[in-house]
């Protein structure tokens, strides 16, 4: 695998990743970030082989169906996975399965990069408090959008560029090192467990300890009825019904006529 990307190709892909991971394109970036598809398409476009890129990406997508990120904790960054794995696969004429083997660990590593962006934001956004105190809308706007966008670009572009330009052999090595054995097991476990954090955050933010029985009800419904593969929307409808009935019954006017 000695074929590599051109500087421009690597740079363009790196910029794309920065656009997605900085979330600068608005809420619509959510699905760009949660799904490898758009990134795969861009890579195909940049490398001139959309067809093969899409086929590889579709295989990667299957691994990431159904991820959610309550409270911010997405257990992997599929877009980053695709940004690295699809070029490597195209250059090395790898099978979609081989591409998955690269995308999964890279996406896991990527999720720690995203967390690091959070971390940097936490410090760098402090100026906004000053502008707010002064009623300075212009400054406020800049510190809310400008600063974190800059951080993301500085963080993602060089890293992704290096990974892509010098990277194919390095990545292949890295990947084959961790593919089996403990590292991948650890990464998987961390990914599978971190969802607990986001869920607990929302529970804490909802803040009504009194209503926790409904959390447990839902949890054990989903465990007990697992074999029935009940659709999420139906579960949500049951939730709405329970909420309505509870509120009706807990208010005095419950027995009023309507």
């Amino acid at each position, binding site marked *: 695998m000695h074929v590599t990307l051109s500087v421009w190709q690597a740079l363009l892909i790196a910029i794309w990743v920065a656009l997605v991971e900085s979330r600068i394109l608005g809420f619509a970036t959510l699905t760009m970030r949660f799904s490898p598809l758009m990134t795969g398409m861009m890579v195909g476009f940049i490398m001139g082989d959309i067809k093969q890129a899409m086929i590889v990406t579709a295989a990667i997508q299957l691994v990431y169906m159904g991820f959610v990120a309550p409270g911010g904790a997405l257990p992997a960054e599929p877009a980053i996975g695709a940004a690295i794995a699809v070029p490597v696969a195209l250059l090395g004429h790898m099978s979609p399965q081989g591409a998955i083997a690269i995308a999964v660990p890279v996406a896991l590593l990527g999720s720690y990069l995203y967390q690091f962006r959070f971390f940097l934001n936490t410090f760098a956004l402090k100026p906004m408090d000053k502008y707010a105190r002064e009623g300075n809308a212009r400054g406020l706007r800049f510190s809310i959008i400008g600063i974190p966008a800059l951080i993301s670009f500085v963080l993602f572009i060089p890293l992704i560029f290096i990974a892509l330009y010098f990277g194919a052999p390095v990545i292949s090595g890295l990947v084959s090192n961790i593919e089996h054995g403990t590292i991948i097991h650890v990464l998987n476990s961390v990914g599978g467990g971190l969802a607990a954090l986001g869920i607990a955050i929302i529970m804490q933010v909802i803040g009504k300890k009194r209503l926790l029985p409904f959390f447990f009800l839902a949890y*054990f419904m989903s465990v007990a009825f697992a074999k029935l593969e009940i659709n999420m929307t139906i579960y949500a409808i049951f939730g709405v019904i329970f909420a309505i009935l509870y509120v009706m019954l807990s208010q005095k006017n419950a027995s009023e006529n309507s």
Partner: protein
Amino acid sequence: MSDNPTVEATNDEPQATTEHRIPQPDALTNKDLMKSWFGWWWANEVPHTFDRMLAPSFCFGLIPSLQKLYKDKDELAKSFQRHLLFFNTQATWGGGTLTGVTLSLEEARAKALANGEEPISEDMINNTKVGLMGPLAGIGDSIDSGTVQYIFIAMFLPFAKQGNFLGALLPFLCFAIATFTYGYYFTKMGYSLGRSAAKEIMTGGRMQGIIDGLGILGLYMMGILAGQYITIRSFLKFSISGKVFNVNTILNQILPGALPLLAVILVYWYFQRQGLKITRALLYLTGALIVLSIFYII
């Protein structure tokens, strides 16, 4: 890094405000609602931080509308400040609705201030926001990220498999357009609900019931998500005089789903004890998961 963001608002309604003349606010129009919704939509997770979460982007969206409401520099600054306090919710169901609700409350407050009447307090605005953000996050995450998104992806995935770029473009476009559209609808709905909510709040009406109901739904959806997305199982095996015991099998005999639940409960319990210290919880949880999985306990 301040790891313990306080959610409480500053409670000091300065008596001075009613003394110096406060200018009448401009009325908010549909265009203003669209501007604020778009602002929130655009900035959404750009300024994500551990201690404020999405407060900066929420504030970002409100800026143009707040400028129309508070011609008085002091009040404007105060309004900026109160909307930079910890805030986190999902973009459309939560953020759309709350952008609308908040603007209607701010408008009522601005008018009352200008007319020298008793205004809706900062606390009230904050409590409403904080009371609704959690439940709506729970609902919105399960619907938008968890359902709508993947339905579009599943629908068009066959294209991608055939190497057709529509398999990427169509789910993106559908999701972007659908969520933008109903998010704006929620903003308008929230705005008109907020007007009646403002009255309800004053008269102590059914607001509590609504918040309770949304809280139930939010917690319930978290339960469903926890059951379907947290995947922790034990890989521990031990043997007594030659016989191998598989801990995961035993746990499933006692209580299926015990481990994922335990993880949520531990983190929740940590927050209950220590406050919403997300960074620390993240570090501890990651640390614990790494250690446990290195030894193949999980």
